[in-house]
């Protein structure tokens, strides 16, 4: 059996999902390909590649949100909508994490974009500007 690169597998997976193939079936195919290529330990990396493909095709962006305090539902909804516009995707999968070192504001990172609106970054900018 031919060995495929992770990028080729990610493209295949997205193509199959867009073709309305069941996600479970696509997952089995990917697992089989990883095992055949002896790349079982690269499953997480493959998922990152799939997420990148999804975001680059304007489908789904997997975003990581970092704040000093937990966001309200209203702010989370507004931020999600704004990320959709900024990243040019139809859906956003948002995962949140609390980090007091950012002091205030937020930081959002996707596979292809990053927005840092934290007070910690602004302080670093001030420090660099002095």
């Amino acid at each position, binding site marked *: 059996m031919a060995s495929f690169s992770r990028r080729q597998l990610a493209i295949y997976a997205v193509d199959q999902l867009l073709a309305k193939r069941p996600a479970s079936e696509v997952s089995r195919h990917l697992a089989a390909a990883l095992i055949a290529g002896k790349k079982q330990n690269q499953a997480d990396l493959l998922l990152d590649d799939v997420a990148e493909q999804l975001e680059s095709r304007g489908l789904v962006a997997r975003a990581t949100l970092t704040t000093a*305090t937990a966001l309200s539902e209203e*702010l989370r909804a507004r931020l999600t909508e704004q990320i959709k516009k900024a990243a040019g995707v139809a859906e956003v999968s948002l995962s949140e994490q609390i980090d007091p070192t950012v002091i205030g504001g937020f930081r959002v990172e996707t596979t292809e974009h990053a927005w840092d609106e934290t007070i910690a970054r602004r*302080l670093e900018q001030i420090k660099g500007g002095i």
Partner: protein
Amino acid sequence: MFSLNTQFASGSGISSLGIELKSFLFQLITFIIVLLILRRWVFPKLVATLEARRKTLEESLVQAKQTQETLERAEASADKILHKARVQADAALADAQDQAKDVVAQAETAAETQAARVLKEAEQQLSQERDKLREQLKGELADLVVLTTEKVLRAKLNPREDAKLISKSIEELK
């Protein structure tokens, strides 16, 4: 002869003078013999000896004159040599003085150049140290400002204010 004999005979010639003729003749003959002997064997040797002495004296005089001339020439030559040596010594002394002046001038120039270089290097080093210190102070000031600002913000920034800040930032997200 006749006249002489006549005079002798007469007893009025030499005899009248108290001279005895025989004795006189004998002495005359003896004188002649002695004269001949001297002329034959003594005078030539004596003359030769005297001539040799004269020649020796002349040669000595010539040699003395030559020696005198040689001495004079030697003195003249010595004077010339001394004069020449004095002139050369004066020239050498003048050259040495000139060279000494040149050496001193070169040493002064080199010292001035080196002093200028050392001064320039010191100024550069001082400038570098000053810039380094300025940058260090700047960094420390920045750290201090940021630290102070961070402390103030942590004290002042409550969840409500943070929410306002996040809301404003969401609007600016592009």
